[in-house]
């Protein structure tokens, strides 16, 4: 069972209160008219799917009902940090290797 720190509620809650919502920081194309099919396809369907640190969106469905972001290791499932939408992650695979 994951214990997830909700940055809005400012407390740890159990995994069952949350819903994972996939990769975070995917920017919608700025100019839809000028966006090619390849770019739309990439935005809609193609994902990083890393083995290691993953920045992803979670939804506090049975709590504050707000979205936030999580950096989580996809092998150990360890949650490395949580942060609000609009903020940037401070941890990725490069910084983790440097910290070791």
């Amino acid at each position: 069972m994951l214990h997830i720190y909700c940055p809005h509620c400012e407390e740890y809650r159990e995994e069952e209160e949350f819903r994972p919502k996939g990769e975070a920081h995917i920017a919608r194309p700025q100019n839809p008219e000028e966006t090619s099919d390849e770019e739309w396809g990439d935005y809609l369907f193609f994902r990083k799917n890393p083995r290691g640190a993953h920045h992803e969106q979670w939804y506090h469905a049975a709590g504050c009902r707000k979205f936030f972001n999580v950096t989580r290791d996809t092998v150990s499932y360890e949650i490395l940090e949580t942060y609000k939408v609009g903020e940037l992650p401070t941890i990725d695979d490069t910084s983790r290797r440097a910290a070791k």
Partner: protein
Amino acid sequence: MQHYSGFELVKHGLSHHENWQRVWRNPEPRSQYDIIIVGGGGHGLATAYYLAKEHGITNVAVVEKGWLGGGNTARNTTIVRSNYLWDEAAWLYEHAMKLWEGLSQDLNYNVMFSQRGVMNLGHTLQDMRDINRRVNANRLNGIDGEVLDVKQIQEIVPLMDCSRNTRYPVLGASWQPRAGVARHDAVAWGFARAADALGVHLLQRTEVTGIRTSGGKVLGVETSRGFIGAKTVGVVTAGNSGVLAKMAGIRLPIESHPLQALVSEPMKPVLDTVVMSNHVHGYISQSDKGDLVIGAGIDGYNGYGQRGSYPTIEHTLQAIVELFPAFSRVRMNRQWGGIVDTTPDACPIISATPVGGLFFNCGWGTGGFKATPGSGNVFAATLANGKAHPLAAPFSIDRFISGKLIDEHGAAGVAH
């Protein structure tokens, strides 16, 4: 290859079964092959077998980082069916089903394919509309299917609670009599043995660490046992497809998720078919050994950890106990997770890539086992001819750019 038969069994009995030939060899890698297949699971081994058998290409290596059939082939819940909604998917899975029906004879290896029927339950009016639509679509494609009412369901599965007193009463079901189960390990072993006999090299404990390319064309693979060359490389690595794609510098519309399954303690026969429910989210069958084999949907988050979360197990067993109250006292023996590579439309990717000579067969998500012979068959043709087999063509990666998706979430979302 030593032929397996009843006579051989008796003959070897006389020498205490001590003189059986090894099932396959463990060769040293050559420096160059015609075709390399990355991934020694069911799909990869089937690809190698059909390359040798149907296309006469035997200078082939299957490169496997662990042991043969040790990934999702060993972790799935062994269900085989072909009742998919859309033509493209139905044709592909039915192609596999037809191969399943003669597979034990073809491979001279008992894959224990048992056509005991698969039942997909409906619990709401919309479920029943979808079931009717899917069964009609199946029948138009020449795939067997029936819509059952509650009385017919109860006759087939007397143990199931079909009363009106449950939270989600059973209203009906779709039924595919030709569907069933097969022995998952035997499928990998049977394909491995038959491919080996035709001259294919099975390179176990050989991990691919890189894909060497030059001028946009593939040259071979870097492995833990050195570089191995080939002008054609087929990647069939299920949950790790994304990792391999990264080595080749391409992106895939895939996310890897844990998918869990459980088996109970062995019991006397109580369930002689496969029961699935999308709505209460669970499915169950009983193996020949007697244990109940149980599964449900994927864990929602991305993961490569080959284990899942407790809430998913609890949710799965709630559904099973709701359907079969008698199973509430059954103890679970083992639980495990496999890593499935899910695509946005719940259909596989069998495709060329921007790298010349490099092909991917992946994205089978939660339900690849049923397609094992069909997947290998069409992928072998794709590798041998350098262009997609007609049944594989709609599953090109280009569909995620053109938008021509084949949405099979209804047939593959929970039922695997």
